[in-house]
């Protein structure tokens, strides 16, 4: 650190940026770490079944697995397209 640096007002704080990015990433990776291994396959097959009847896109299904001390929750979300459902 030079004399000039000492009087310079601190520039963009890259450490806090690093911390923020890590916190988000680590939280995400931890939640997927505890997921059962069958989850991706389940998601794929569910999507196939749903698409037999409804015209939905690849991203229409999301599966969320949560684990508390005494219970496990499997949350399934299917986003249906707006109007055309009734026509098919």
């Amino acid at each position, binding site marked *: 650190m030079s004399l000039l640096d000492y009087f310079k007002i601190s520039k963009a704080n890259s450490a806090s940026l690093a911390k923020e990015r*890590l916190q988000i990433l680590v939280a995400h990776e931890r939640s997927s770490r505890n997921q059962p291994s069958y989850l991706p396959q389940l998601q794929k097959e569910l999507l196939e079944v749903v698409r037999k009847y409804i015209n939905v896109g690849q991203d229409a299904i999301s599966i969320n697995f949560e684990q508390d001390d005494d219970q496990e929750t499997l949350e399934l979300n299917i986003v249906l397209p707006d109007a055309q459902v009734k026509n098919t």
Partner: protein
Amino acid sequence: MARIIVVTSGKGGVGKTTTSAAIAMGLAKKGHRTAVIDFDVGLRNLDLIMGCERRVVYDFINVINGEATLNQALIRDKNCNLLYILPASQTRDKDALTQEGVGKILEDLSKDFKYIVCDSPAGIERGAHLAMYFADDALVVTNPEVSSVRDSDRMLGILSSKSRRAERNQEPIKEYLLLSRYSPERVKLGEMLSVDDVQEILSLHLLGVIPESKSVLNASNAGVPVILDEKSDAGQAYQDIVARYLGEDRPHRFIDDKKGFFGKLFSRSH
């Protein structure tokens, strides 16, 4: 029974071998019979850091394959007669490292030694898996840098689910954080994650901070574990770490920027 310590990190180049050499030497210097094992088959380097590279005759895999006895393969350290090194194989196939073979060697060593330090290779492949599988304690070496912190978190997940203790539903591996290559000046400038930041993200018990130090390269150049350089900051940091690991209560050092106003005026920027 020996206590089995794995030195791990996931990411390469963060200081696992430096740490393994220093910790093993520190434990031995405190009067405990200690063995340190290099698990990096194909890329052994612990021998070089310990300065015994020219005395390697047999290696880990020779012992697993029954081509040499454990006593033939163990190298007694030239600086401390309570410390022994088991080098990794340099040339052979990684598949020779088997869970049964490693388990047998650790069991045999346990009869003779108080501490067994396992120097894990980088990554999460077989060598790294076997280095941590039998562990009682894990020293997670982390640099204050995004990819290292992320990989450490990944290793923590593996330690808690893929170890022998996890499989047997025993008390989990005790995990400790060793933050290395730390630069308090850069932390103060907001250019580097602080100890608190890393601890908040990993929620690990901090065993010690090793400052970024020229003495580490000097020590590896000479093949002498840096902990023996008692005047150096890194050497002292490792001595603290060994003492804390053995239950001593020592305040943390090397976390704050100790330089005063004039020190800052005259130090060169990095």
